[in-house]
């Protein structure tokens, strides 16, 4: 395989059930390193469940059973021997609703690196500036680093959350509809930011917004719920899946006739 097609994270026959009720059935999907993969599909088709299984956030839900295989950098992460702090610092996550902690901007960014022992005796000023510049927030907040982060605007909060994830130097970033709770202007800024992270990080972006998927995605994975269980219908390069899909269902969905 050429480096371009190198796989950063891969699921094999991944299934998730909540209290015995299947939510995701047999998803096998390789995600290319450094590319943006958009996960699209109607509500309730298991997109978010798929995303949460990748960094084992599903562990938080009582009664949630994950089976199959998830490999990050060739390592099986569903194995209980895998250390969650390791996994989650490799695979970061951004949520639909921005969720900065109700503490200062500075502490929001440095809390996790400090807990993971990445800082040592460093006060973290360099890291702070680097990740804030990366998300285009440095000029906006450099004089307000001690401001409580929940006072920032919605778009700024979301970019701060992305910076917070980047501070751990992850390989993969999972984003669960990162723009859908933002106003159009802020949404555009975050979308541009996501596009700018291409190459350095492997991004998996769940979205309801097909035009957005068209704009930013390299690859597209289309999910659909059949018999109450989310399945992967089709995946591949964005142009192929969105413009000339193989499956009837995908074709109907991207033309806006289903879902």
């Amino acid at each position, binding site marked *: 395989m050429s480096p371009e097609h190198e796989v950063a994270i891969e699921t094999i026959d991944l299934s998730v059930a909540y209290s015995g009720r299947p939510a995701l059935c047999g998803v096998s999907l390789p995600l290319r390193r450094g590319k943006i993969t958009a996960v699209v599909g109607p509500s309730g088709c298991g997109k978010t469940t798929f995303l949460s299984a990748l960094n084992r956030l599903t562990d938080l839900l009582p009664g949630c059973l994950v089976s199959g295989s998830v490999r990050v950098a060739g390592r099986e992460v569903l194995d209980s021997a895998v250390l969650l702090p390791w996994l989650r*610092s490799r695979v970061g996550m951004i949520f639909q609703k921005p*969720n900065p902690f109700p503490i200062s901007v500075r502490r929001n960014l440095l809390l996790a690196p400090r807990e993971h022992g990445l800082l040592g005796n460093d006060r973290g000023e360099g890291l702070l500036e680097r990740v804030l510049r990366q998300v285009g927030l440095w000029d906006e907040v450099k004089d307000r680093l001690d401001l409580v982060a929940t006072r920032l605007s919605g778009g700024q909060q979301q970019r701060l959350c992305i910076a917070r994830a980047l501070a751990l130097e992850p390989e993969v970033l999972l984003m669960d509809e990162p723009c859908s709770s933002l106003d159009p202007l802020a949404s555009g800024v975050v979308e541009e930011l996501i596009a700018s992270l291409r190459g350095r990080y492997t991004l998996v972006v769940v979205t309801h917004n097909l035009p957005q998927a068209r704009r930013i995605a390299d690859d597209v994975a289309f999910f659909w719920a059949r018999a109450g269980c989310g399945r992967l219908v089709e995946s591949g390069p964005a142009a192929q899946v969105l413009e000339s899909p193989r499956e009837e269902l995908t074709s109907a969905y991207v033309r806006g006739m289903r879902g």
Partner: protein
Amino acid sequence: MLVFAGIAADLLVRGGALDVRFLVEAPSRSGRAGGIGPILVSTAAILAICIAVCAPLGVAAALLLSEWRGRGLAAGRVIGLSLDVLAGVPSIVFGLFGSAFFCRTLDLGFSLLSGGLTLACMALPLVARTAEAGFRAVPLEYRAGAAALGLSRAAVARHVTVPAAMPSILAGLALGIGRALAETAALLFTSGYVDRLPGSLWDSGRAMSVHVYDLAMNVPGGDPNAYRSAFVLIVMILAIQVALQGGLGAWARRRWHVA
């Protein structure tokens, strides 16, 4: 507010003039004359012990109940039930328990220490249950966000949950202090009713409410000073409530910007 003003006015009218001398002088002739200086000192000492013990214990119990419940379901239920039972126990029973356990078994004798510890047992359920409600009110997004950063539960509790729930913790503490300050029965058998200035925490001492009770019930001609002491007591309670719920609570809300 009206009821409070009515009671305060009534006490002032019946007690007559109140001056600083009353607050600092030692009582004489069984409290008929003189002031309440030593009694204020004893009260403060008992209260300090009570807070020092029940605040950390209460917050720890609340954390256990709200954050660590998933693992030790049975333990959580037992602790929760014990707190509820404790909240319903009459204060005289606490007095007898304190007398038997702290004074005799632990050999602390009639002392401020015994009294403070007994009050801590009484205030514990109020502090713990109120703090627990506060922890449960902390948005789930914070927890999910923290988990996605690979933070341990201890780190989340320390840096996110406890600060976010600080107003509730303070409110619980205010309730507990209110109950402790109003207590007579539990103190009669534990810290005693000697009205001189205590030399140490192992000394016996008289709390404000015990003083009021004694003057009103056991000392003929003690009524005016009983009224005055009662007035000082309710002003004290009011001041502590305002300080904890108003001042510190508002500070915590500003500091962490939480509702």
